[in-house]
């Protein structure tokens, strides 16, 4: 157990290092000079001395690998640099904004799992029933329709036609609607994966034994199929986690939520590359934490899995 955990930690660390190095070298090789951007952003006099002093302060004259190590050292101890645009520390911005983005992604995924289990179960219990057809249409439909457009249509229907919510008003609905949209997208795939595994159970001999013992189909399916199907459900959640964090970007823009993706977009118009680097790192950490959590949960469900 301990060896597995330390091995997983080591692999996660190597992944993070590789991603950070790649992002750093690509961003550092951009033609635009951060000193000139800062001088313009802060209205400093563009004299030789200022430029030279700033280059020295930021260590821009050093070779690239040394700069990467400097950056890495600062990043690990929490010095993520300052935003050109606001002048505030980038870490503080992320600490303030991250809960908003995480709430969206996490609540959406949890809601999708909570709904996918009863829906998938009903679909497996009654093949070709209402739940089966509905989840099938849902899983095909959501792949074709971008969630931010669905959000716009929802705003139009709920806000303009029925006047239930106020579009772009930054009230409770600008949280509830994006969470529902994320859940809706993942629900289609999750419920189908869960259903497929339950159907697989019904073809097993031990399921027939359970039926012959006198269990009803519903009881037998729940007692003997749910655990195995949860395992595949979690595997599907793993791939949905990346989607959830990506789609929160469009939904944050649409609903005007001050999450990390909105910060990135605002920073990019000011060519604030330190923010981009920090953003990539935050997303990579989120993905690695999600992967580790799901792997751990899967191992609890099925100790045979390696």
């Amino acid at each position, binding site marked *: 157990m301990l060896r597995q955990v330390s091995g997983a930690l080591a692999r996660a660390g190597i992944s993070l290092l590789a991603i950070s190095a790649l992002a750093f070298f690509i961003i550092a090789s951009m033609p635009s000079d951060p000193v000139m951007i800062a001088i313009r952003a802060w209205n400093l006099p563009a004299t030789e001395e200022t430029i030279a002093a700033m280059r020295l302060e930021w260590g821009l004259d050093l070779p690239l690998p040394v700069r990467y190590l400097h950056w890495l050292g600062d990043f690990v101890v929490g010095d993520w640099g300052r935003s050109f645009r606001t002048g505030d520390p980038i870490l503080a911005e992320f600490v303030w904004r991250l809960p908003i983005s995480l709430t969206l992604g996490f609540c959406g995924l949890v809601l999708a799992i909570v709904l996918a289990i009863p829906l998938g179960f009903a679909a497996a219990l009654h093949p070709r029933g209402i739940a089966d057809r509905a989840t099938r249409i849902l899983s095909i439909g959501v792949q074709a329709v971008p969630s931010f457009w669905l959000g716009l249509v929802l705003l139009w229907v709920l806000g303009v036609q029925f006047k239930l919510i106020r*579009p772009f008003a930054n009230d409770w609905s600008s949280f509830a609607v994006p969470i529902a949209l994320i859940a809706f997208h993942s629900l289609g795939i999750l419920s189908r994966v869960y259903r497929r595994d339950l159907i697989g159970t019904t073809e097993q001999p031990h399921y027939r034994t359970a039926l012959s013992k006198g269990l009803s189909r519903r009881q037998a399916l729940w007692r003997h199929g749910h655990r195995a199907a949860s395992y595949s459900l979690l595997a599907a959640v793993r791939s949905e986690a990346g989607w959830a964090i990506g789609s929160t970007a469009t939904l944050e823009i649409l609903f005007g939520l001050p999450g990390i993706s909105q910060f990135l977009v605002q920073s990019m118009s000011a060519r604030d590359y330190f923010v981009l680097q920090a953003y990539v790192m935050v997303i990579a950490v989120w993905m690695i934490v999600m992967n580790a959590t799901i792997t751990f949960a899967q191992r609890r469900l099925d100790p045979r899995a390696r």
Partner: protein
Amino acid sequence: MKPAAALLTAAFALLIAGGVWQPYDPDAIDMTARHAPASFAHLLGTDNLGRDLASRLMAGGWRTALVILSVGVIAFVGGGTLGTAAAMLGGWREALILRAAEMFIVVPTLIVALTVAALFGLTPLSAGLALGLAGIGPYALLAHSLTRRTLGLQFVQAAEALGVERLRLMTRHVLPTTLPLIFSYAGSQAGLSVVAYASLSFIGLGADPSVPDWGSMLYEYRIFIFDHPGLMIWPGVAIATITALLNWNFDPGEPLRPGSKRTTVRLSDV
């Protein structure tokens, strides 16, 4: 030709034709014809600046087609080559390629594309390049597992036992089996890249917002939701139609069964 394939071909012809000819200049501002209703002169009406909506959709369709093609070519060639090479070479080179491919799956495709677009600006080609490069990881893993499985098939082993050399074995027996499967995977991924490009241009990232991309049109027209909802309906319908056609053509719609003949990688893994 199956109906899905015929419709998809027609849609693609329409997208390409839309890049060559539009009834109006998609950027021509006509303040006397703002928010004109649908008519014979303007089939879908005009927008807030009097630009013809149908022309803008057609120009956006051409840009979307460029993205689909460049993503497909880059991911298909790059991932296919790497994955097949990994399976044929074996040993530490195989392990190295697979580890590298797995590492790049960690960061979601859209985030990679977002990063590249933030650095190089958002054009159909930069987005296609970014989405294609981000797709190399999963394509390589898919190509690898398909190739491994094909190498284990009896007719391939028989050919190997007869002394067919590696290169010829690959071109004669392995690639004809794996390439159609990788291609159909590429088709099912094309719908995702349409949505991803729309998302990128919706987010914008400081790109020129007046460029007629379907996503940036949705961003621009979202504020007219109260008075002119038609403006934001049509670009969405265009995205959904193209994506649905691509998915219908290449994807059975179900997540593939584990151990099924086609692949071991589920389409939802990406």
